[in-house]
């Protein structure tokens, strides 16, 4: 089992066919993908989105703006008693959400926020190629997908839309709730609030489908719960990230081994060396 030569795999620049032993090794080893805090933030955020879309879709109520049918608007309004109540809950949850997210991003600025933006807000050559080939793949062509980092290009795009959307939603939400600025400001706030929400929703269908429905991505869903992802999945789907993490792991292990050895030497626990 331990005979697997990871170095061989690390030398490649894309996934290669694996021997059964290698496969078994990767299947049974895990890498950490999500810390506890981002994990909880994600599910908190998802729950809030559920609630805000539910209430928000019923709050938009005019010929010019609405996109849900009247029966839906009435049903949701009745659930909350009055429409004024409905709005109150929408605003309350929005405020709690903003505070949690802002506190999260500020406290995690070094550990989470900046690394996340660095990693995921830039598309490299592989990412662009990935998007094109993925598109062709959906159209039925057999094309190879270039290796991907921690998140693939599609996930990166969604992350940008989602986080950009969230920032716009929070700012415009506050403007609307507290009538900040002139009427003209509020007018624009409404439009951007809806555009941001609509844009994220468009991406969200795909996001949730990938996470919750698509078989191949089940390890990804598991990773959002356990925080870990098996290496076989990482190897195939996020090769560049797998390589980076694996190298780091090996480096750390090597360093620890050396440190341990040195210490052992100092303490005279390595008799053979002393004999030399």
């Amino acid at each position, binding site marked *: 089992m331990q005979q697997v030569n990871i170095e061989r795999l690390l030398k490649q620049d894309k996934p290669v066919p694996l021997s059964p032993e290698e*496969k078994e090794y990767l*299947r049974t080893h895990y890498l950490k993908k999500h810390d506890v805090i981002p994990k909880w933030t994600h599910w908190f955020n998802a729950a809030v989105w559920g609630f805000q879309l539910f209430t928000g879709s019923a*709050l*938009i*109520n*005019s*010929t*010019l*703006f609405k*996109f849900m049918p009247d029966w839906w*608007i009435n049903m949701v309004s009745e659930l909350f008693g009055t*429409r*004024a109540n409905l*709005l109150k809950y929408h605003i309350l949850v929005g405020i709690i959400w903003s505070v949690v997210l802002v506190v999260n991003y500020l406290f995690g600025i070094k550990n989470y926020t900046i690394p996340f933006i660095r990693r995921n807000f830039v598309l490299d050559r592989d990412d662009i190629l990935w998007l094109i080939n993925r598109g062709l793949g*959906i159209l039925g062509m057999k094309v190879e997908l270039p290796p991907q980092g921690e998140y693939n290009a599609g996930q990166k795009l969604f992350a940008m839309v989602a986080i950009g959307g969230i920032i716009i939603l929070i700012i415009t939400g506050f403007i*609307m*709730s*507290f*009538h900040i600025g002139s*009427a*003209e400001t*509020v*007018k*624009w*706030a*409404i*439009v951007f609030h*809806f*555009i941001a929400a*609509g*844009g994220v*929703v*468009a*991406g969200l*269908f*795909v996001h949730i*489908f990938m996470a919750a*429905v*698509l*078989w*191949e991505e089940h390890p990804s869903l598991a990773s959002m719960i356990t925080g870990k992802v098996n290496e*076989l*999945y990482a190897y195939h789907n996020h090769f560049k990230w797998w390589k980076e993490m694996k190298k780091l792991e090996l480096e750390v292990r090597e360093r620890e081994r050396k440190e341990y050895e040195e210490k052992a030497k100092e303490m005279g626990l390595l008799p053979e060396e002393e004999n030399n």
Partner: protein
Amino acid sequence: MARYAMVLNIDRCVDCKACVIACKAEWNVPEGYSRDWVKEIGPVGEFPNLKSAVYPGLCMHCEDPPCIKVCPSGATYKDEKGRVLVDQELCIGCGYCADACPYGARYIHPDLGVVDKCTFCQPRVDAGLEPACVETCIAEARIFGDLDDPDSEVYRLVYKEGAVPLHRGEVNYGASVFYMGEKEQVELLLEKAPLRKTRFSTAGTVWRIFRPLLGVAAGLSFLGVTVAAIYQLIKGEPKIEE
């Protein structure tokens, strides 16, 4: 059901603006703003044939009000007695409605940041009183009542005496405020009373463009995902991790 309405007899109106002041006092309307107005139209024509008229006005409580169509939050609504009202708790102060009103009957309250307008004195009327402007009018130029009630004075004036709403061109939303008086003056008022075209701010236009785009984006996304899900169902679960 009832449909509250007001008839304004411009023959009697002496442009004293007591109604405007009474309204301001009753509803604490901030300085520089007003829920109702008395404007002077004219004089038009050539001396010595000058014509002029007074134009006392307020929210016309339209049957099919353009302000309601554009209100994003549903704060503006028509109550069961035909009054166009604003739920200020729901109002976010965007002012789309104020732009849409051809009569200019709405303003944004500078302290509250929400829209304010004539309510046909809803609280007073519901308590059995007359609207403040009606009660105050020394000339009894204002008559308030229920247009659905055949015994009411407004019913008589509108259906028998021919009081007319201030409609002109596309501004034709079923106003519940009617004008009567000397024919020439009423005609002048109908012709010359300042009306605005419904304004549509740039923001509103942007939304009009984006709404279908967003619909298409979300629709395609949903459709794609559905097709993919069905495809996966048909194909069945793949062999583990290949």
